[in-house]
Protein backbone atom coordinates (compact mmCIF):
# COMPACT_ATOMS: atom_id res chain seq x y z
CA UNK A 1 0.00 0.00 0.00
CA UNK A 2 1.61 3.29 -1.05
CA UNK A 3 2.11 5.79 1.77
CA UNK A 4 1.35 9.35 0.79
CA UNK A 5 3.63 12.06 2.06
CA UNK A 6 2.48 15.50 3.22
CA UNK A 7 2.08 17.80 0.23
CA UNK A 8 3.25 20.92 2.05
CA UNK A 9 6.79 19.58 2.62
CA UNK A 10 9.99 19.37 0.58
CA UNK A 11 12.13 16.23 0.69
CA UNK A 12 15.76 15.12 0.39
CA UNK A 13 17.21 11.89 -0.95
CA UNK A 14 18.44 11.21 2.60
CA UNK A 15 14.83 11.15 3.82
CA UNK A 16 14.67 14.45 5.63
CA UNK A 17 11.72 16.77 5.15
CA UNK A 18 11.75 20.56 5.17
CA UNK A 19 8.84 22.91 5.81
CA UNK A 20 9.09 26.59 4.95
CA UNK A 21 7.80 28.64 7.88
CA UNK A 22 8.25 32.38 7.31
CA UNK A 23 12.00 32.94 7.58
CA UNK A 24 12.99 29.50 8.90
CA UNK A 25 12.97 25.95 7.60
CA UNK A 26 11.69 23.28 9.97
CA UNK A 27 13.44 19.92 9.49
CA UNK A 28 12.55 16.35 10.38
CA UNK A 29 12.82 12.84 8.98
CA UNK A 30 10.20 11.14 6.85
CA UNK A 31 7.95 8.26 7.84
CA UNK A 32 9.99 6.11 5.44
CA UNK A 33 13.15 6.88 7.48
CA UNK A 34 11.28 6.22 10.71
CA UNK A 35 10.14 2.86 9.46
CA UNK A 36 13.68 1.92 8.44
CA UNK A 37 15.08 2.95 11.83
CA UNK A 38 12.54 1.38 14.15
CA UNK A 39 12.31 2.59 17.76
CA UNK A 40 14.26 5.83 18.06
CA UNK A 41 16.22 5.96 21.32
CA UNK A 42 18.55 8.95 20.99
CA UNK A 43 18.88 12.03 18.79
CA UNK A 44 22.16 13.92 18.73
CA UNK A 45 21.75 17.45 17.35
CA UNK A 46 23.71 20.69 17.04
CA UNK A 47 23.20 23.63 19.41
CA UNK A 48 21.22 26.72 18.39
CA UNK A 49 23.57 29.18 16.69
CA UNK A 50 25.69 26.50 15.00
CA UNK A 51 25.94 26.53 11.22
CA UNK A 52 24.95 23.56 9.12
CA UNK A 53 25.77 22.85 5.47
CA UNK A 54 23.33 21.50 2.90
CA UNK A 55 23.76 17.73 2.43
CA UNK A 56 26.28 17.61 5.27
CA UNK A 57 25.81 15.70 8.51
CA UNK A 58 24.32 17.82 11.28
CA UNK A 59 23.64 15.07 13.81
CA UNK A 60 22.88 11.43 14.43
CA UNK A 61 19.77 9.49 15.16
CA UNK A 62 19.92 6.16 16.95
CA UNK A 63 17.39 3.39 17.17
CA UNK A 64 17.70 0.26 19.29
CA UNK A 65 19.48 -1.42 16.41
CA UNK A 66 21.40 1.20 14.43
CA UNK A 67 22.86 4.69 14.09
CA UNK A 68 22.05 6.92 11.14
CA UNK A 69 23.42 10.30 10.18
CA UNK A 70 21.15 13.31 9.78
CA UNK A 71 21.77 15.55 6.80
CA UNK A 72 20.75 19.17 6.48
CA UNK A 73 18.41 19.94 3.57
CA UNK A 74 19.75 23.50 3.33
CA UNK A 75 22.67 25.54 4.66
CA UNK A 76 22.18 28.06 7.42
CA UNK A 77 22.11 28.71 11.13
CA UNK A 78 20.34 26.46 13.58
CA UNK A 79 17.65 28.52 15.31
CA UNK A 80 15.89 25.97 17.48
CA UNK A 81 16.35 22.32 18.36
CA UNK A 82 13.50 20.15 19.56
CA UNK A 83 14.37 19.88 23.25
CA UNK A 84 11.55 17.39 23.89
CA UNK A 85 13.51 14.74 22.01
CA UNK A 86 16.14 14.70 24.76
CA UNK A 87 13.76 12.99 27.16
CA UNK A 88 11.27 11.59 24.61
CA UNK A 89 13.07 10.45 21.45
CA UNK A 90 10.07 8.25 20.66
CA UNK A 91 8.25 11.40 19.52
CA UNK A 92 10.08 10.92 16.21
CA UNK A 93 8.27 7.58 15.79
CA UNK A 94 4.96 8.90 17.00
CA UNK A 95 4.81 12.06 14.89
CA UNK A 96 7.68 12.52 12.47
CA UNK A 97 6.00 15.56 10.84
CA UNK A 98 4.68 17.09 14.05
CA UNK A 99 6.07 16.76 17.57
CA UNK A 100 8.97 14.69 16.23
CA UNK A 101 10.57 17.57 14.29
CA UNK A 102 14.33 17.99 14.79
CA UNK A 103 15.61 21.53 14.17
CA UNK A 104 14.78 24.81 12.50
CA UNK A 105 17.33 26.47 10.22
CA UNK A 106 17.57 30.07 9.05
CA UNK A 107 18.69 29.42 5.47
CA UNK A 108 21.67 31.30 4.11
CA UNK A 109 20.81 30.56 0.50
CA UNK A 110 17.13 30.43 -0.46
CA UNK A 111 18.17 28.96 -3.80
CA UNK A 112 19.04 25.64 -2.17
CA UNK A 113 15.34 25.01 -1.59
CA UNK A 114 14.97 24.57 -5.34
CA UNK A 115 17.07 21.42 -5.15
CA UNK A 116 14.59 19.60 -2.91
CA UNK A 117 11.87 17.22 -4.08
CA UNK A 118 8.16 17.75 -3.70
CA UNK A 119 6.00 14.92 -2.30
CA UNK A 120 5.22 13.40 -5.71
CA UNK A 121 8.89 13.37 -6.70
CA UNK A 122 9.88 11.89 -3.33
CA UNK A 123 7.33 9.10 -3.68
CA UNK A 124 8.67 8.40 -7.14
CA UNK A 125 12.21 8.35 -5.71
CA UNK A 126 11.17 5.88 -2.98
CA UNK A 127 9.80 3.63 -5.70
CA UNK A 128 13.31 3.31 -7.13
CA UNK A 129 14.77 2.11 -3.81
CA UNK A 130 14.98 -1.53 -2.82
CA UNK A 131 12.32 -2.99 -0.60
Amino acid at each position, binding site marked *: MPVTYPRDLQYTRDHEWARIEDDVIRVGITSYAVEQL*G*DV*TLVDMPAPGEDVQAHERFGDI*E*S*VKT*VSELFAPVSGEVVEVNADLESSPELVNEGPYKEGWLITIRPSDQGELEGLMDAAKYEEYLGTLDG
Partner: protein
Amino acid sequence: MPVQYAGIKKEHEAVRKRAGLFDVSHMGEIIVEGPQAVAAVDRLVTNDVSKLDVGRALYTTCCNEAGYILDDLIVYRLEEEKVLVVCNASNRDKIVGHFAKNLGLGVPWNDVSDAWALLALQGPNAVAIMRDLGAPQDLLELPYFHVTRANLAGVELWLARTGYTGEDGYELFCASDDAVTLWKALLAAGETHGLEPVGLGARDTLRLEARLALYGNDISEETHPFEAGLGWVVKLNAHDFIGRDALRTIKAAGLKRKLVGFEMTGRGIARHGYPIVADGNRVGEVTSGSPGPTVGRNIGLGYVPLALAKVGTKLGIEIRGKVVDAVVVSTPFYKR
Protein backbone atom coordinates in the same frame (compact mmCIF):
# COMPACT_ATOMS: atom_id res chain seq x y z
CA MET B 1 14.01 -14.61 10.83
CA PRO B 2 13.31 -10.91 10.34
CA VAL B 3 15.00 -8.18 12.39
CA GLN B 4 11.62 -7.19 13.75
CA TYR B 5 7.89 -7.77 13.48
CA ALA B 6 6.03 -5.12 15.51
CA GLY B 7 9.14 -3.26 16.70
CA ILE B 8 12.12 -4.22 18.84
CA LYS B 9 10.98 -2.51 22.05
CA LYS B 10 7.47 -3.92 21.85
CA GLU B 11 8.73 -7.45 21.13
CA HIS B 12 11.32 -7.21 23.89
CA GLU B 13 8.66 -6.18 26.39
CA ALA B 14 6.36 -8.97 25.25
CA VAL B 15 9.02 -11.57 26.12
CA ARG B 16 9.78 -10.02 29.52
CA LYS B 17 6.16 -9.52 30.58
CA ARG B 18 4.14 -12.05 28.58
CA ALA B 19 5.67 -14.31 25.91
CA GLY B 20 7.44 -14.27 22.58
CA LEU B 21 7.80 -16.80 19.78
CA PHE B 22 11.06 -17.03 17.84
CA ASP B 23 11.79 -18.93 14.65
CA VAL B 24 15.44 -19.78 15.19
CA SER B 25 15.57 -22.53 12.59
CA HIS B 26 18.76 -20.97 11.23
CA MET B 27 20.64 -22.53 14.18
CA GLY B 28 22.81 -25.53 13.33
CA GLU B 29 21.99 -29.00 14.66
CA ILE B 30 24.27 -32.02 14.62
CA ILE B 31 23.19 -35.46 15.83
CA VAL B 32 25.90 -37.81 17.09
CA GLU B 33 24.94 -41.43 17.69
CA GLY B 34 26.17 -44.79 18.83
CA PRO B 35 27.87 -46.21 21.92
CA GLN B 36 30.75 -43.73 21.51
CA ALA B 37 28.52 -40.65 21.03
CA VAL B 38 28.95 -39.18 24.50
CA ALA B 39 32.68 -39.82 24.74
CA ALA B 40 33.27 -38.49 21.23
CA VAL B 41 31.40 -35.22 21.86
CA ASP B 42 33.09 -34.92 25.24
CA ARG B 43 36.46 -34.78 23.51
CA LEU B 44 35.35 -31.79 21.42
CA VAL B 45 33.93 -29.52 24.10
CA THR B 46 35.26 -27.90 27.28
CA ASN B 47 32.40 -28.85 29.58
CA ASP B 48 31.97 -32.38 30.94
CA VAL B 49 29.49 -34.24 28.76
CA SER B 50 30.40 -37.63 30.26
CA LYS B 51 28.29 -36.89 33.33
CA LEU B 52 25.29 -35.70 31.31
CA ASP B 53 22.26 -37.88 32.07
CA VAL B 54 19.76 -38.81 29.39
CA GLY B 55 17.23 -35.98 29.12
CA ARG B 56 19.65 -33.29 30.28
CA ALA B 57 21.39 -30.46 28.46
CA LEU B 58 24.43 -28.32 29.12
CA TYR B 59 26.01 -25.16 27.80
CA THR B 60 29.63 -25.35 26.67
CA THR B 61 32.30 -23.80 24.56
CA CYS B 62 34.11 -25.68 21.80
CA CYS B 63 37.73 -24.62 21.51
CA ASN B 64 40.59 -25.10 19.09
CA GLU B 65 43.96 -26.58 20.11
CA ALA B 66 45.08 -23.13 21.24
CA GLY B 67 42.18 -22.87 23.68
CA TYR B 68 40.35 -20.19 21.72
CA ILE B 69 36.62 -20.37 21.11
CA LEU B 70 35.36 -21.97 17.88
CA ASP B 71 31.74 -21.72 19.03
CA ASP B 72 29.44 -21.93 22.00
CA LEU B 73 27.05 -24.86 21.99
CA ILE B 74 24.22 -26.50 23.82
CA VAL B 75 24.63 -30.25 24.07
CA TYR B 76 21.47 -32.29 24.70
CA ARG B 77 21.63 -35.96 25.62
CA LEU B 78 18.46 -37.11 23.88
CA GLU B 79 18.95 -40.83 24.41
CA GLU B 80 21.54 -43.18 25.85
CA GLU B 81 23.33 -43.24 22.51
CA LYS B 82 22.07 -40.06 20.87
CA VAL B 83 23.44 -36.56 21.44
CA LEU B 84 22.19 -33.34 19.87
CA VAL B 85 24.62 -30.47 19.46
CA VAL B 86 23.21 -27.03 18.66
CA CYS B 87 25.63 -24.49 17.21
CA ASN B 88 25.40 -20.96 15.87
CA ALA B 89 24.19 -20.58 12.29
CA SER B 90 27.24 -18.51 11.37
CA ASN B 91 29.51 -21.31 12.60
CA ARG B 92 27.64 -24.26 11.14
CA ASP B 93 30.11 -25.09 8.38
CA LYS B 94 33.08 -24.62 10.69
CA ILE B 95 31.62 -26.79 13.45
CA VAL B 96 30.38 -29.50 11.09
CA GLY B 97 33.89 -29.62 9.62
CA HIS B 98 35.47 -29.70 13.07
CA PHE B 99 33.19 -32.53 14.16
CA ALA B 100 33.69 -34.46 10.92
CA LYS B 101 37.43 -34.28 11.39
CA ASN B 102 37.60 -34.98 15.11
CA LEU B 103 34.67 -37.16 16.18
CA GLY B 104 36.59 -40.24 15.23
CA LEU B 105 36.05 -43.15 12.88
CA GLY B 106 32.99 -45.23 13.50
CA VAL B 107 31.05 -42.50 15.28
CA PRO B 108 27.92 -41.86 13.21
CA TRP B 109 26.92 -38.22 12.97
CA ASN B 110 24.56 -36.20 10.84
CA ASP B 111 24.15 -32.49 10.15
CA VAL B 112 20.35 -32.15 10.45
CA SER B 113 20.29 -28.34 10.33
CA ASP B 114 18.24 -28.24 7.14
CA ALA B 115 15.89 -31.07 8.06
CA TRP B 116 15.13 -29.63 11.49
CA ALA B 117 13.38 -26.45 12.54
CA LEU B 118 13.74 -24.76 15.93
CA LEU B 119 11.10 -22.59 17.56
CA ALA B 120 11.62 -20.86 20.90
CA LEU B 121 8.72 -19.97 23.18
CA GLN B 122 10.03 -17.60 25.85
CA GLY B 123 8.54 -15.53 28.63
CA PRO B 124 6.59 -15.80 31.89
CA ASN B 125 3.45 -17.01 30.07
CA ALA B 126 5.27 -19.82 28.22
CA VAL B 127 3.95 -22.52 30.56
CA ALA B 128 0.34 -21.33 30.28
CA ILE B 129 0.65 -21.33 26.49
CA MET B 130 2.02 -24.87 26.50
CA ARG B 131 -0.90 -25.92 28.69
CA ASP B 132 -3.37 -24.42 26.21
CA LEU B 133 -1.54 -26.24 23.45
CA GLY B 134 -2.40 -29.46 25.28
CA ALA B 135 0.93 -30.24 26.91
CA PRO B 136 0.53 -32.68 29.82
CA GLN B 137 1.67 -31.74 33.32
CA ASP B 138 5.03 -33.50 33.08
CA LEU B 139 5.99 -31.35 30.10
CA LEU B 140 4.87 -28.20 31.87
CA GLU B 141 7.10 -29.19 34.79
CA LEU B 142 10.10 -30.09 32.63
CA PRO B 143 13.03 -28.68 34.64
CA TYR B 144 15.48 -26.07 33.37
CA PHE B 145 18.03 -27.52 30.91
CA HIS B 146 16.10 -30.77 30.50
CA VAL B 147 14.90 -32.23 27.22
CA THR B 148 12.24 -34.80 26.35
CA ARG B 149 10.33 -36.29 23.46
CA ALA B 150 6.86 -34.80 22.97
CA ASN B 151 3.92 -34.60 20.62
CA LEU B 152 2.21 -31.22 20.52
CA ALA B 153 -0.39 -30.00 18.03
CA GLY B 154 0.09 -33.32 16.23
CA VAL B 155 3.79 -32.61 15.72
CA GLU B 156 6.56 -34.96 16.89
CA LEU B 157 9.28 -32.94 18.55
CA TRP B 158 12.06 -32.67 21.09
CA LEU B 159 11.05 -30.25 23.79
CA ALA B 160 13.76 -28.51 25.84
CA ARG B 161 13.60 -26.08 28.75
CA THR B 162 16.28 -23.83 27.29
CA GLY B 163 16.48 -20.41 25.70
CA TYR B 164 18.49 -17.29 24.98
CA THR B 165 16.48 -14.51 26.58
CA GLY B 166 16.95 -14.65 30.34
CA GLU B 167 13.32 -15.75 30.71
CA ASP B 168 11.67 -19.06 31.43
CA GLY B 169 10.64 -20.90 28.31
CA TYR B 170 10.98 -23.76 25.90
CA GLU B 171 12.77 -24.60 22.70
CA LEU B 172 11.03 -26.96 20.29
CA PHE B 173 12.94 -28.99 17.70
CA CYS B 174 10.76 -30.47 14.96
CA ALA B 175 10.96 -31.52 11.32
CA SER B 176 11.16 -28.50 9.02
CA ASP B 177 7.99 -29.70 7.28
CA ASP B 178 6.08 -29.39 10.56
CA ALA B 179 7.40 -25.98 11.54
CA VAL B 180 4.55 -23.94 10.06
CA THR B 181 1.95 -26.14 11.74
CA LEU B 182 3.70 -25.80 15.08
CA TRP B 183 4.26 -22.05 14.69
CA LYS B 184 0.57 -21.46 13.94
CA ALA B 185 -0.59 -23.71 16.79
CA LEU B 186 1.69 -21.89 19.25
CA LEU B 187 0.53 -18.46 18.09
CA ALA B 188 -3.11 -19.57 18.40
CA ALA B 189 -2.57 -21.00 21.89
CA GLY B 190 -0.73 -17.83 22.86
CA GLU B 191 -3.33 -15.39 21.62
CA THR B 192 -4.97 -14.94 25.01
CA HIS B 193 -1.57 -14.84 26.73
CA GLY B 194 -0.13 -11.87 24.86
CA LEU B 195 2.21 -13.98 22.72
CA GLU B 196 3.96 -12.11 19.92
CA PRO B 197 6.40 -13.18 17.21
CA VAL B 198 9.88 -11.83 17.95
CA GLY B 199 12.70 -11.01 15.56
CA LEU B 200 16.49 -10.87 15.67
CA GLY B 201 16.59 -7.31 17.02
CA ALA B 202 14.83 -8.13 20.28
CA ARG B 203 16.63 -11.47 20.49
CA ASP B 204 19.82 -9.44 20.70
CA THR B 205 18.61 -6.95 23.32
CA LEU B 206 17.09 -9.76 25.42
CA ARG B 207 20.27 -11.84 25.44
CA LEU B 208 22.44 -8.79 26.12
CA GLU B 209 20.43 -7.80 29.20
CA ALA B 210 20.83 -11.39 30.43
CA ARG B 211 24.56 -11.23 29.57
CA LEU B 212 24.42 -14.21 27.26
CA ALA B 213 27.39 -14.13 24.92
CA LEU B 214 26.93 -13.65 21.19
CA TYR B 215 29.45 -15.45 19.03
CA GLY B 216 31.21 -13.08 16.65
CA ASN B 217 30.72 -10.21 19.11
CA ASP B 218 31.62 -11.18 22.66
CA ILE B 219 33.40 -14.42 21.93
CA SER B 220 35.38 -15.54 18.89
CA GLU B 221 38.55 -17.31 17.86
CA GLU B 222 40.36 -14.29 19.36
CA THR B 223 39.00 -14.96 22.85
CA HIS B 224 39.31 -17.82 25.31
CA PRO B 225 36.60 -18.94 27.75
CA PHE B 226 38.30 -17.63 30.91
CA GLU B 227 38.50 -14.01 29.82
CA ALA B 228 34.97 -14.24 28.43
CA GLY B 229 33.67 -15.18 31.88
CA LEU B 230 32.96 -18.72 30.71
CA GLY B 231 35.46 -20.50 32.93
CA TRP B 232 32.51 -22.30 34.53
CA VAL B 233 32.06 -24.37 31.37
CA VAL B 234 35.71 -25.43 31.25
CA LYS B 235 36.30 -28.67 33.17
CA LEU B 236 40.07 -29.04 33.11
CA ASN B 237 40.10 -32.02 35.44
CA ALA B 238 37.49 -34.15 33.73
CA HIS B 239 38.26 -35.96 30.48
CA ASP B 240 40.71 -34.77 27.88
CA PHE B 241 39.36 -32.44 25.20
CA ILE B 242 40.75 -30.41 22.34
CA GLY B 243 42.36 -27.29 23.77
CA ARG B 244 42.72 -28.58 27.33
CA ASP B 245 46.49 -28.28 27.55
CA ALA B 246 46.43 -24.76 26.14
CA LEU B 247 43.66 -23.74 28.52
CA ARG B 248 45.64 -25.09 31.48
CA THR B 249 48.57 -22.90 30.43
CA ILE B 250 46.30 -19.88 29.89
CA LYS B 251 44.73 -20.37 33.31
CA ALA B 252 48.10 -20.77 35.03
CA ALA B 253 49.39 -17.58 33.42
CA GLY B 254 46.43 -15.58 34.75
CA LEU B 255 44.01 -13.30 32.94
CA LYS B 256 45.23 -10.18 31.18
CA ARG B 257 41.81 -8.86 30.26
CA LYS B 258 38.22 -9.65 31.00
CA LEU B 259 34.80 -9.22 29.44
CA VAL B 260 32.88 -6.76 31.61
CA GLY B 261 29.43 -5.24 31.56
CA PHE B 262 29.10 -1.48 31.60
CA GLU B 263 26.37 1.08 31.47
CA MET B 264 26.54 4.52 29.96
CA THR B 265 26.44 7.31 32.52
CA GLY B 266 26.81 9.95 29.82
CA ARG B 267 24.44 10.48 26.93
CA GLY B 268 25.21 7.94 24.24
CA ILE B 269 24.76 4.39 23.04
CA ALA B 270 27.77 2.09 22.83
CA ARG B 271 27.93 -0.17 19.79
CA HIS B 272 30.00 -3.18 18.73
CA GLY B 273 33.51 -2.04 17.76
CA TYR B 274 33.58 1.31 19.56
CA PRO B 275 36.85 1.96 21.46
CA ILE B 276 36.91 1.81 25.25
CA VAL B 277 39.23 4.47 26.70
CA ALA B 278 40.68 5.26 30.10
CA ASP B 279 42.88 8.27 30.90
CA GLY B 280 43.02 9.14 27.24
CA ASN B 281 44.29 5.71 26.18
CA ARG B 282 42.49 3.10 24.19
CA VAL B 283 42.21 0.10 26.51
CA GLY B 284 39.67 -2.12 24.80
CA GLU B 285 36.71 -2.44 22.53
CA VAL B 286 32.97 -2.71 22.92
CA THR B 287 31.83 -6.18 21.84
CA SER B 288 28.07 -5.61 22.26
CA GLY B 289 26.09 -2.50 23.05
CA SER B 290 22.58 -1.18 22.77
CA PRO B 291 19.78 0.33 24.78
CA GLY B 292 18.48 -2.17 27.34
CA PRO B 293 14.72 -1.82 27.01
CA THR B 294 13.90 -3.52 30.34
CA VAL B 295 16.78 -2.14 32.41
CA GLY B 296 16.11 1.31 30.97
CA ARG B 297 19.77 2.14 30.47
CA ASN B 298 22.23 2.02 27.61
CA ILE B 299 24.36 -1.04 28.29
CA GLY B 300 27.21 -2.97 26.78
CA LEU B 301 29.96 -5.57 27.07
CA GLY B 302 33.61 -5.19 26.27
CA TYR B 303 37.09 -6.45 27.06
CA VAL B 304 39.19 -4.32 29.40
CA PRO B 305 42.52 -4.91 31.20
CA LEU B 306 42.05 -6.70 34.52
CA ALA B 307 42.93 -3.53 36.46
CA LEU B 308 39.87 -1.81 34.95
CA ALA B 309 37.45 -4.69 35.35
CA LYS B 310 36.18 -3.97 38.87
CA VAL B 311 32.56 -2.94 39.32
CA GLY B 312 32.41 0.83 39.71
CA THR B 313 35.44 1.54 37.51
CA LYS B 314 34.87 4.58 35.32
CA LEU B 315 35.49 4.08 31.60
CA GLY B 316 35.00 6.16 28.51
CA ILE B 317 33.37 4.94 25.32
CA GLU B 318 34.47 6.70 22.16
CA ILE B 319 31.31 7.40 20.18
CA ARG B 320 32.03 8.96 16.79
CA GLY B 321 35.08 10.82 18.05
CA LYS B 322 33.55 11.92 21.35
CA VAL B 323 34.32 10.21 24.68
CA VAL B 324 31.18 9.48 26.68
CA ASP B 325 31.28 8.33 30.33
CA ALA B 326 30.47 4.78 31.32
CA VAL B 327 30.90 2.65 34.43
CA VAL B 328 31.58 -1.04 34.97
CA VAL B 329 28.54 -2.72 36.51
CA SER B 330 27.78 -6.23 37.70
CA THR B 331 26.07 -8.56 35.27
CA PRO B 332 23.61 -9.86 34.27
CA PHE B 333 22.04 -6.46 33.73
CA TYR B 334 18.66 -8.14 34.06
CA LYS B 335 17.66 -11.12 36.15
CA ARG B 336 14.12 -12.47 36.32
